[in-house]
């Protein structure tokens, strides 16, 4: 028996080591399993905010203290059942809604400037995070966030519920020259946003793209043709600074959270 015929491991392993195709196929299967098990169910199971064409969002049901299911249209804004029918009429507490045109333009700037590298948008269910940032984040709140922005690092504070905490004027000063407002801050100066106009063409295209998403698209009943057509006019004369401030002010106040409800189940 020559050295090359000797089996040093198992028969199967030896066979794999002699056959390129077999090695390739078995490796390709081995590395696929974990991802399939963890990812695919998120498109089907409850509590994942997968809501397209399904008002129950895969049967997601948050229950109050008495065990009564809270209707999903209390969590996710539905113009058909809400008393507020359009994006402009929407009020905080009506439920999760897509971004208004100016906010969406601001979100583009937020991503472009890499804000998510230092600011998370995901509050965890701990006492200190509740005291510091507010109610823990729920899946539905980021369902329209194509490219989620939960973040992984808090060099600066979490922004998931920053909306309404500071005035527009504070944000403007702070974004322009952070250390004028917070001397210890290490945030870069974003004064240049004040000079750049919002790109209305890009915004209009972005809104269209958001309605074309295969998963959780913005309903065409919300981004109606009229809303998309009116977007350019709505952001006329606005700067990127205005848009970022609008975006920040829109964060976190969509859902009216009630005591004692387990929103993550």
């Amino acid at each position, binding site marked *: 028996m020559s050295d090359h015929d000797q089996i*040093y*491991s198992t028969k199967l392993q030896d066979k794999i*080591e002699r056959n*390129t195709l077999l*090695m*390739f196929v078995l*490796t*390709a299967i*081995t*590395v*696929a*399993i*974990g*991802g399939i*098990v*963890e*990812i695919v169910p*998120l498109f089907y199971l409850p509590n994942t*905010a*997968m809501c397209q064409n399904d008002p129950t969002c895969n049967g997601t049901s948050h229950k109050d203290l008495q065990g009564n299911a809270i209707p999903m249209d209390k969590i996710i804004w539905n113009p058909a059942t809400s008393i507020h029918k359009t994006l402009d009429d929407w009020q905080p507490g009506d439920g999760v809604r897509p971004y208004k045109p100016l906010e969406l333009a601001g979100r*583009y700037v937020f991503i*472009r*400037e*890499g*804000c*998510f*590298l230092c600011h998370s948008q*995901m509050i*965890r269910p*701990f006492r*200190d995070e509740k005291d*510091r940032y507010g109610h823990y*984040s729920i*899946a*539905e*709140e*980021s*369902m*329209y*966030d*194509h*490219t*989620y*922005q*939960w973040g*992984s690092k*808090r*060099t*600066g504070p*979490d922004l998931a519920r920053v909306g309404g905490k500071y005035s527009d004027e504070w944000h403007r000063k702070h974004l322009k020259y952070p250390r004028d407002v917070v001397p*210890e*801050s*290490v945030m*870069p100066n974003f*004064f240049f946003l004040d000079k750049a106009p919002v790109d209305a063409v*890009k915004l209009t*295209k972005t809104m269209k*793209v958001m309605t074309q*998403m295969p*998963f959780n698209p913005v309903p065409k009943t919300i981004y109606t043709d009229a809303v998309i057509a009116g977007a350019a006019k709505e952001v006329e004369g606005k700067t990127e600074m205005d848009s970022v401030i609008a975006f920040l002010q829109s964060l976190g106040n969509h859902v009216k959270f009630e005591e004692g409800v387990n929103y993550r189940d």
Partner: protein
Amino acid sequence: MEATNATPVKYDMDVVRWFTIMAVVYAVVGTLIGVYVASELAWPFLNFDIPEITFGRLRPLHTNAVIFAFGGCVLMATGFYIVQRTCATKLWSNSLAWFTFWGWNLIIVCAVITLPLGLSEGKEYAELPWWTDIMIAVIWVCYGFNYIMTIGIRTTSHIYVSNFFTVGMIVMITYLHVVNSLAIPVDWATSYSIYSGVQDAMIQWWWGHNAVGFYLTGGFLGIMYYFIPKQSQRPVFSYRLSVLHFWTLSFGYVWLGAHHLQYTALPDWTGSLGAAISLAMIIPSWGGAMNGMMTLSGAWDKLRTDYILRFLVTAMAFYAMSTFDGPVMAIKSVNSLSHYTDWTVGHVHAGALGWMAMISFGSLYHMVKKLWNTEIYSEKLVNIHFWIALIGATTYVVAMWVSGIMQGLMWRDYDEFGTLSYTFVESVSAMHPYYVMRAVGGAIFNLGTWIMLYNVVMTVRQANAVRGVSAVAAKA
């Protein structure tokens, strides 16, 4: 490992030489940008009010430069080197390898231009614009196809374990990159992921952690299993352990991404599953680390004289340390403290500087000697590089561990009245000394890469002077 053929095989090594040189260059550039972004956090005036160099735009350039430029060139240089030598054959296609070389470097040029301009898809380690993503997919598949076909035409009977690790990486990175990058373009500069919220978060960290697991770990374990035995001139400690290491690591690593999302809006079962498998992963990781280290058993004295071997063995120590640190951080109670803090940054750099860069430096020095068939210009400088790299990496990692734990503790601290003890910004200013220390550690590490660049350039020049001119080496 190499077949003892009667007629020696003429390998295609020119492309390997070029990947090797570029790897050394990108080591300098990538860590230099890292030092700069680290300094921006310590001294924010360094943003200089220039949008293109603000932290938010430069940080992705740092991560892309070290992972894809430096790491990529190391993986392709060593990959093409190992596959030829262990299969005792030329590359399946030398021209395709050259196409891979130019394509990969073109992608890096695109990254250098687009990232400072603010083109970002908003996903960590996958910021590059959609058309660059397509280029990456094409070039990566070219690399992988060439690699696997070269295994296919091998003249040896068995496929060596290094090639298993590399093929695992090639397949997994293809899955990850394609699935995670699916997006709808708005215009040439901007696109939006087709996923949102929970699904996007899980897919992103499936990508994020397995870029670490297969690209920065699997691929580099392939390097380890070739270069440690070669440099120490000892057979791998345990062949069976290496087989076990490969299959368990390949199966298990894929599950870990979910541990980045503990206590988020991701369903609890997913994060817990990720944490459980993370803990189990200590076993294959440490098995592999032991396998690398024990390869030296009976030859430990070589560490006294062989500086290249020092790099390789220290890398295994850092590998063992990071693969312990990681599972600990995946435990939910630990994660509640460590997540969102600098601890994560420290963990990543223990792996990146201590394990990945060290094993790369060792292998690059080894290859430079073989590729140009010469001795290193200065062994002494290799030794100095080793100590500088070790001191730099340790300084960096310690700074981030301390700052991370401190941050986590400050955020959750309550005073006797039941109110939060610290405002957020107090935690920011408390980090300043550690951010300075981190920048210094990074700068020390970067200094080492300059020394390496000098040493490698001088080695190549010396080799050319002795042996006349090789077209490639002359240009290098």
